[in-house]
């Protein structure tokens, strides 16, 4: 039985393209043009993954509201944000909407498919017991690769998939400096230096929210970042 995906996107051409592409990848896809339409459909039946555009028609932040509503109903539902504005990324993390990932709209369909795949994998992994082989433990940090889950002192850090992969890159070889290109490649995002910097900042914030004394990620100026051994 194919997994069901809902796309909430106000631009009909993009919606149609995504729907077609994801259908081709073997998902059951439904597209919705506006928040009310989507909410009406979700009231009937929840999909297994939702892709939401932040700006919905005449609601420039309608996607956030939709996300909030969904989270209150289904805590584990993977939600992926699509946005045309980089500034939204800060908002998304700032609002602690609990998005599992976010992508800018110029992402290629392959990348989108990879993200969706990863999210589904993570969902499945969370239902299974943790695979010991794919767990990295480093001091108070515990990283479960399959589940894409990171805990700090036993408390889960709510990282998005992108952020998870960045941490994963650093934690696999603690003490090794990872430059921005490497981080970008691992996280499979095409962004610039500044975005990497802000990603790292957001990751730090999420750790700091759990442990105010956290300083696991070290900046090596002019080179990149490393996980403190």
């Amino acid at each position, binding site marked *: 039985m194919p997994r069901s995906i809902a796309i909430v996107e106000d*631009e009909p*051409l*993009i919606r149609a*393209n*995504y729907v*077609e*592409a994801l259908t*081709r990848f073997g998902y059951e896809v439904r597209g919705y043009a506006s928040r009310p339409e989507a909410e009406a459909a979700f009231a009937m039946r929840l999909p297994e993954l939702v892709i939401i555009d932040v700006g919905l028609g005449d609601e420039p932040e309608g996607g956030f509201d939709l996300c909030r509503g969904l989270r209150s109903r289904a805590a584990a539902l993977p939600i992926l944000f699509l946005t*045309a*504005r*980089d*500034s939204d990324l*800060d908002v998304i993390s700032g609002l*602690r909407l609990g998005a599992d990932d976010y992508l*800018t*709209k*110029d992402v*290629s*369909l*392959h990348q989108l498919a990879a993200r969706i795949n990863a999210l589904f994998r993570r969902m499945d992994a969370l239902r299974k017991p943790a695979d010991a082989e794919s767990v990295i433990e480093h001091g108070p940090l515990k990283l479960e690769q399959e589940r894409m889950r990171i805990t700090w002192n036993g408390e889960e850090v709510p990282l998005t998939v992108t952020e998870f992969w960045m941490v994963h890159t650093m934690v696999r070889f603690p003490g090794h400096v990872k430059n921005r290109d490497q981080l970008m490649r691992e996280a499979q995002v095409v962004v*610039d*230096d*500044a975005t990497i*910097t*802000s990603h790292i900042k957001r990751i730090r914030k999420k750790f*700091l*929210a759990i442990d*105010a004394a956290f300083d696991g990620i070290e*900046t*090596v*100026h*002019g*080179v990149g970042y490393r996980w403190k051994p």
Partner: protein
Amino acid sequence: MSLRQKLLLVALSMLALPWAGWQFVRQMEVLLRQGQEQTLIASGKALSRSLVAINAALPPPGSAVYVHDLTVPIAIDGYGDDWSTVRPYFQALGPATDAQKVKMVLGKDAQWLHGFVEVRDRTRQRADAHDPQAARADRLELEFSRAGFTRRYWLASAAPGPFEALPSGMEGGPLPLTITGEWQEDAAGYRIEFRVPTSQAPDTLSLKLVDTGEPDAIAGSEPMTLLHYSTSLARELEQFAPESTRVRLISGDGWLVAESGAVAQVQPRGETEAPSWLARWAYRWLIAPALQGTPALAQSQARLDAAESLQALSGVPAATWRAGSSPGDVVLVAAVPLIVDRETRGAVLLEQTNTALPLLTDAALKRLGLVSLGVLALAAGVLFAFATWLSVRIRRLRDGAERATAADGRLEGRVPLTDSKDELGDLARSFQQLLDAIAAYTDYLRTLASKLSHELHTPLAIVKSSLDNLEHQPISSEARAYVGRARDGIDRLVAIVRAMSEASRMERAIASADAEDFDLSEVARGCAESYRALAAPRDIIINVPDQLMPMHGAPELIAQALDKLFDNARSFTPEHGWIRIGLEPDATGMVLSVANQGPLLPAAMHGRLFDSLVSLRDGAGRGDVPHLGLGLYVVRLVAERHGGKASAHNLPGGDGVEFVLHLSGMPRESVASRAPMARR
């Protein structure tokens, strides 16, 4: 010329005020003078009427010959040099055709009445008076009358020398029996000097000249009264004269008959002090510059031939002013005809020195000066204050306008004075509108790139996802090539759009950066070391001190700025050239510098180097992401965020360029204002 100076110049127009006041004072003074003239003329008239009423011995009507009081003894010698004091008063009694032919003067001392006659006569017939030939000789016939008696004397001489003139009538009463005298001649004529005792002096005298050479030129005169200076009349004058006034009585011919008083200075009542020299001077030159009176009247003269006396003798009172003896004094002269039985028998001249006028006008002038000065100072002060206020406001407006337009066109704050109701307020509001318009436009321009990129995102996403989908369609291999090209193009477009929005994203990122305490030297050294590999084969020189250089700021931003500067330096440095990264403390903070060997900066770029979207590089190579010149703009933003500035200059040696960041650190937030890390 500043507004203030201009307004002060305008204030000088107030100088018209003292001028107008001065004119007014002059007018007043003229009126006062006219009043005084009227008064003096009136008292002159009263005086003359009083004289007539008391039957004073006034000069008789008709012609008269004046008897001068002699001050020098007269020698009867026929020469006129001892008459020099009265020479101006010789009376010409010649015929109408030649009045100067006979000139006579009389004078008296205690004992004698002296006479001197000059006759112009080139042809002479000489004979003594008692000679029978005398009737055909040149002679002077004198006729004396007194108390009804008349005697006629022939004055003639056969030769120069003494003579005796015998009377022709015997019944002479008190008149002298003979007149002794001296006769002298020269080529131009002859002179007769004679005398009679004063006790025998006549009341009237007539004179007849017989010139045998010129029978037509027989000059004869009416009987002429002998006119003396009268002390009794002077006493009477003194009774009637106003005080501090000189009164002179003159006969119908202008001879001085009586005089009393002196031209003294009048002390106006209630005034204890005489006018100061300054007041006198001011009066003389500022108020009464034109004094038309005859100066000669000031002296004591036997005959007053001035215009005033002539006018009075013609029957019309006259009043004039002349300068007094001491500077600043003015003397008022009034001449009033002396009329007895509708016949002008002479005139009375009254003269008064006037100090009241100088005093009055001086007081007026002083007050005027003070008032003018006060008003002028007040007006100047008010204008100065107003101008100052105005220029302060204008300056505030200008400063506001300058402040509002920050160096890079960003606007901050509002223009002052926009609430004023006057024209400056209008101007300020216009400024504000202009600045608002500029701000809006600048804002539009600044956000244009990000807006544009934002707008382009969606269509790009459509094209991109469409191409992705197209790849999964069964299409010919030729078409696939086109799809590939379209994908290349779209990738490049995406890169351009991302770069376009990078500026505003960077601005946001820099503005929201959190400050922490870090060691700047460590950051600089770390960055510089990491550039070694990137810079090869170029040489990296690191001039960073080992000591701790604490800085409050965002290290990742500084590192980013360094990255941009290094990237910039590397692209301009020739291979095997050098790049030098330095750090040193200065007065206000730290100076971070990146210098490199390479081409110098073009002069035109100096001011704009750190602006957004300015690039010195050549167009991007094919397939490259275009270089939009954001690097140095980011550097500048970072420097400004750290309370400093970025600058660039050519090295003094001329072999390269140095970019300098002055950093003083971000402002420290107080612990209280720092938002606690809340878990939302």
